[in-house]
């Protein structure tokens, strides 16, 4: 990657690996641009192909429908050539190390590499070995920065201002990279964060991130503006965390009764894919007055367009 001399870059760092890497002005730039694309996407208007002649590679070591499609669509809308690599069918299965994979892809001169990996920190490791911009599309239980950005945009479009909102993140916080990225980003933007989960699913010392912790959902939801539900990640649960999904839904699933504790106009979010009847009542998820779930998906494409554009801005393609 060659940086132009009079750099027009919008972001300080060459990669988007963690919300922690972003300053507040950088978040504003990304969200404003994403907001513009969200409107443009709706109007089916003509979008300037700012990524024309760029190559975007998605490299997913974990299965994904929504995020992968969202990134690929974003790249296409901006005119990039996008290629998806299915890591489960590639050389990685034949024993190639992550660093070797990185070097191989690097030799192909991509402009942006979008990576998801089951191990925390793996995307960062890969980013150290390549010359192109790397976007973390989720690494283990560490971070998923574009999800947090799209959640922030969704909230912004519905509540105007993120500052001083009470936002509850509920459920499997321990295994959730979405929770970590959202806690960091939304706190940065001035929201008051709390997590609600059974004690076995609360990461150690999470209160040190400047948030409140509740194990009683009814108490935790009081005065909330946004209720963000998390998927119970059964596939990451090595060992016992909750006795049964039935018990989990009873105490930590979002239903009409529990939602009454939150503010009257509280809105529901979920990063998907949902476990209906486990963490969220099916009818609530489908309630278009309260649920922002579909909007989140829509904002996902816009946010990823903004990230792609801003990361490649000022790069000599």
């Amino acid at each position: 990657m060659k940086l132009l001399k009079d750099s027009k870059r919008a972001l300080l760092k060459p990669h988007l690996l963690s919300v922690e890497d972003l300053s507040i002005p950088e978040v504003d730039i990304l969200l404003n641009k994403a907001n513009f694309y969200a409107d443009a996407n709706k109007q089916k208007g003509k979008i300037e192909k700012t990524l024309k002649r760029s190559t975007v590679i998605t490299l997913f070591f974990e299965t994904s429908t929504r995020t992968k499609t969202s990134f690929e669509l974003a790249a296409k809308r901006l005119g990039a050539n996008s290629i998806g690599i299915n890591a489960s069918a590639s050389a990685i299965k034949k024993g190639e190390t992550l660093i070797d994979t990185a070097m191989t892809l690097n030799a192909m001169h991509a402009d942006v590499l979008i990576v998801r990996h089951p191990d925390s920190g793996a995307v960062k490791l890969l980013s150290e070995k390549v010359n192109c911009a790397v976007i973390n599309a989720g690494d283990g239980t560490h971070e998923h920065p574009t999800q947090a950005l799209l959640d922030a945009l969704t909230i912004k479009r519905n509540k105007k201002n993120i500052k001083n909102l009470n936002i509850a993140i509920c459920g499997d916080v321990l295994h959730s990279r979405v929770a970590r990225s959202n806690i960091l980003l939304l706190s940065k933007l001035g929201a008051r964060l709390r997590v609600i989960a059974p004690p076995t699913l609360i990461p150690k010392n999470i209160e040190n991130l400047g948030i409140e912790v509740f194990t009683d959902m009814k108490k935790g939801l009081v005065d909330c503006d946004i209720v963000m539900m998390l998927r119970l990640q059964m596939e990451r649960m090595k060992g016992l965390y909750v006795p049964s999904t039935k018990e989990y839904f009873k105490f930590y699933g979002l239903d009409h009764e529990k939602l009454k504790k939150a503010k009257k106009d509280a809105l529901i979010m979920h990063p998907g894919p949902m476990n209906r009847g486990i963490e969220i009542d099916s009818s609530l998820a489908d309630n278009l007055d309260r649920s922002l779930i579909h909007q989140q998906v829509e904002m996902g494409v816009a946010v990823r367009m903004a990230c792609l554009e801003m990361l490649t801005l000022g790069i000599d393609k």
Partner: protein
Amino acid sequence: MKEAYINAKILDPHKNKEFIGDIIIEKDKIIDVGPNIHKKEKPKNYTNIHDCKNLFICPGLLDMRVSFGEPISEHKAAFAGGITAVVCLPNTDPVVDNVSVAEYIQRKAREVSNLNLYTYGSITKNFDGENLCEMGLLSKAGVKGFTDATKSIENSAVLKRALEYSKAFDSLVIQFPEDKNLANDGVMNEGEISTRLGLAGIPSIAEVIIIERDLRLVEATGAKYHVSCVSTAESVEAIKNAKKKGIKVTCDTSPQYFTLNEMAVEDYRTFAKVSPPLRSEKDRVAIVNGLKDGTIDAIQSDHMPQDEDNKRLPFNNAEKGIVGLETLLPLSLELYHNKSLSLLDVIKKLTKNPADILNLDHGTLSKGSKADLLIFDPNKPFIVNVKKFKSKSKNSPFDKKPSQGKVIKTICSGEVSYPA
């Protein structure tokens, strides 16, 4: 012919003395120690007279926990670190769980160098945690104690039997304390940093829970028991209380547990991935205090070479361990420089104390003992450079660390082994 090392600041941990004097060695033995004794004979009777002005001489270091594997090639690194004796973990392939492997390792070591190399045997066959090894036969074959290396004996009945049985041969049982169910798939200390990094944590309680159970069994059996790699405040507390109560227990730690804390793994630095994991700052301070008040008897390097390919991986998949032989002395000397311990006390924990625990004839400068000596300058500043390590592996989180204290000369069995 005799060699005289004169005008040295002599640290004799055995006699608990520090004085300026001479050491005379002949062949592989120390034949005299004391102030001004080289004048007893005419200069021509010495092959060499080395004036050690401003340098310290102490017994060569005894590192009681290293992983060498096979082939045994780390002796150069040991000598460069001022170490003249090591005790290897039985985590070789195959495991040291029978006499032939134990004998093979000792014979092989003798062929390679004059480094005093001892080995532990495993407590259970192939570390299966169930079936006891032939402790008697292994002890006779020269094994210096029993440990399942990096695995805890989880089954209380097995440990009880091992402790009881070991008494027949006056053997030492060494526990690596980590409850594997509590540690689960953890890769670092559990706490705010693991939460931020999204890495599975090992709670500090996983260590003390094993120690506390073991101490009950030690009290009940009266066996010789040693805890290796103490890393938490709670463990120090538990062992301190046990010692107060009169329970026979000794323990050690490694420099990484009193010089680093969990912050060292920030940014997913796999070179700082060790077992037990680097703990919190509170724990680090407790380890220093444990060394100060004598709760922690010995310091070992927990030398564990790993090639770079095993470290340059995502944190979850990277191997644990660091190479410690060549940083053991300077890192331990930090305790002296920051005034936690006297120089003599630091040296004791690296020589006499482990020798006493293992009942080995090391860590002494008495007349007639083996001429295993370390000549060093505790104040000399330098920057750790892994590229200069004699060790084959370079997996150290201490690269580029400004340090103090250099090995000037290592003498093993009367021979100058470093610089070679």
